[in-house]
């Protein structure tokens, strides 16, 4: 029971982090038509910036400054990189972001070294919020939930209450129509890209110390975020949200449920011996397949519903 509770909490946390990344990715993709490979790189930079800032000034400053820096970086990337690459079409844009992600990883490797940096949870939040059945839930987890909830509320307000928000919403469902609205399309693009980058940076700030801050974090997070976006359906924020939570739960529960297909078969009365075909595959316990599951889910989704959960359009 306590396992269930804690796992639900962890899954929720992870799902929220995923959504913070995936929502930006979806918005950028839906509006600009760019699959931003560098999105997870901005998440990583957010974490590293936060590490540097909190080391010098403090976590609370980092919480504000690091996402802003990422947003600024995003605006620069959009204005000086993507817009140029766009002349050669969407493929060039995608390749540009891929190259960028690659370079950022190598730069981070060069600047901060190959191992994880000691980016820690701030001491103010490093206490036990409450305990269930002897399992401690740290205040920082509550804080992550709080921040992400506040963030989503803010985005929702921005999208539904502001002029820019309306344009963004309109272009989500009718991407070709934005231009004809007579709107300043480049500004919408820059805003969306910078906003997405800032969100990714924020995810890095609060996720970097919760998980780990290392050069591999971008390339390990990136694919999962893609899975979330494909699974939820391109162009759908709601689908993206549901998919984030599903992936969060799947990943967390896979870690705690220590069973393997062989165990299940044993319950059905079939014993798996080393001689059984695929014995190795059948005996792998669920926690070890954890990283595997999102991709399996994605392939499954594509087979049964190529548009994704709530997707409205093909790619």
């Amino acid at each position, binding site marked *: 029971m306590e396992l269930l509770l804690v796992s639900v909490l962890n899954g929720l946390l992870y799902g929220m982090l995923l959504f913070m990344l995936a929502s930006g990715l979806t918005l950028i993709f839906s509006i600009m038509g760019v699959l931003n490979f560098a999105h997870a790189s901005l998440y990583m930079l957010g974490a590293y910036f936060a590490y540097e800032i909190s080391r010098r000034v403090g976590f609370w400053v980092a919480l504000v400054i690091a996402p802003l820096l990422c947003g600024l970086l995003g605006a620069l990337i959009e204005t000086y990189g993507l817009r140029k690459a766009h002349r050669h079409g969407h493929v060039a844009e995608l390749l540009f972001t891929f190259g960028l992600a690659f370079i950022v990883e190598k730069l981070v490797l060069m600047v901060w070294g190959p191992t994880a940096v000691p980016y820690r949870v701030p001491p103010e939040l490093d206490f036990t919020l409450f305990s269930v059945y002897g399992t401690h839930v740290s205040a920082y987890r509550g804080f992550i939930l709080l921040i992400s909830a506040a963030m989503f509320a803010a985005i929702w307000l921005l999208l539904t209450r502001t002029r820019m928000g309306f344009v963004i919403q309109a272009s989500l469902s009718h991407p070709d129509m934005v231009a004809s609205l007579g709107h300043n399309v480049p500004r919408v693009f820059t805003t969306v890209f910078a906003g997405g980058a800032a969100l990714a940076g924020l995810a890095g700030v609060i996720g970097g110390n919760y998980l780990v801050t290392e050069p591999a974090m971008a390339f390990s997070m990136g694919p999962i975020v*893609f899975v979330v976006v494909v699974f939820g359906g391109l162009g759908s924020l709601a689908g993206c949200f549901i998919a984030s939570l599903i992936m969060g739960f799947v990943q967390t529960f896979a870690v705690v449920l220590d069973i393997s297909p062989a165990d299940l078969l044993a319950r059905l009365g079939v014993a798996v011996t080393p001689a059984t075909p695929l014995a190795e595959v059948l005996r792998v316990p669920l926690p070890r397949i954890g990283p595997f599951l999102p*991709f399996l889910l994605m392939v499954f989704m594509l087979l049964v519903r190529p548009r994704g959960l709530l997707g409205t359009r093909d790619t």
Partner: protein
Amino acid sequence: MSGATIRRRGGARRTWWGSWAWFSALGLAVLLPWIIFDWRHGRHDGFAVALLTQTAIMSVFALSYNMLSGQSGLLSFGHAVFLGLPAYVTIHVMNAIAAGHLWIPEELLPLVGGISGLLFAALFGYPTTRQRATAFAMITFGIGELVTAAATMFQGFFGGEGGVTADRALNTSLLGLSYEPAIEVYYLALAWTVIAVVLMRLLARTPLGRMAEACRDNHERVRFLGYDPHGIRFCQFALSGFFAGIAGALYAMTYEIVTYDAVGATLSGNALFMTFIGGVGVFWGPIVGAVLVVIMQSWVGLVSNAWQIYVGVLFIAMVMYAPGGLAGLIVLHGPVWQEGRIQALLLSYARVALPGLLAVLGFVALVELGSSVMLGEHEKGAVRLFGGALDPASPWLWGGGAALLLIGGSIARRQGRALAARWALIAEGTSAG
């Protein structure tokens, strides 16, 4: 890509110098181990042979990648899977041969790789090729991760962290070779490279190859001509896996060890880099890219930690300014060259190249300075450039590098515009315009 406007079947003239170029490239590949011979010890230069073998393997790999990216307009981010998995299969087959369970002539091992590549590509390709464009890119990326995760998970097939090793001296050669010396493997790899290149070249001229290009240009229209685009993409994907598999088998035979690096994201990224730096619009473009990337990896990699950054920057520069890649640039100059108007451009080129070179120098200096400062910081022990004559943390060096980059860059940019104008003027008179 829009950059390179290539005319197919452009008349007899192109054919003879085209095949002349192919044959001289082949001749060079055959002779190079003897040109770079280590006379002092009376043996082949190990480094050079390793480099050549790697180039051959990567050429096949990059060309197989271009069957997707260039011909079919499919951007794969997990192509290493179809090199790595066949490499694992091959290395297991080699071990089985060594143990006497199997008998396959060593010369035909690449075929084992190819067929397993075909099967893996068919398996993964079926769901993947239902998609195209962005979704395809994301899914292949996911599949790359999936297989990498599997490689660390299943010890039996993938051998865990240490990978799987084998000895390539199998004694099953039809030619009586031992394949112990690296040079013998090189010639085997070269032979299979030639076979693969010829086959891929021919494949591009078959109904499937042409329909793949049609799908790339306009996937919807294809359906109204009776074809199912999924079917076309699927076949093309599977065949591309076949050739990647050949590269995989050669990889296993050359290195005698396969680890999860062979299926990993770095190699997948390399396929992309080689292909796009070389040029997707021209058949031989990826070979140029493979040569260049292998050279950067091995030679620049010897002296600098930052070679990957250079590859990445070169890639981005190509994507932004020359989407046809190096081959696209070369082809673009063909008509101008043939009509003897290239001289008119030389001065303009020099005007861009000189400051451009300075900017590159400045950039390299900055990266290298950064790299050595950081290295000093991480490894506790200051790095000295030129035997301690220069302190990498000195602001003078940094300032100099930055100045070179900025000044050279801005001059090169201005001259670049002038060059573009001049090019337009000249190209107007030729068929390049």
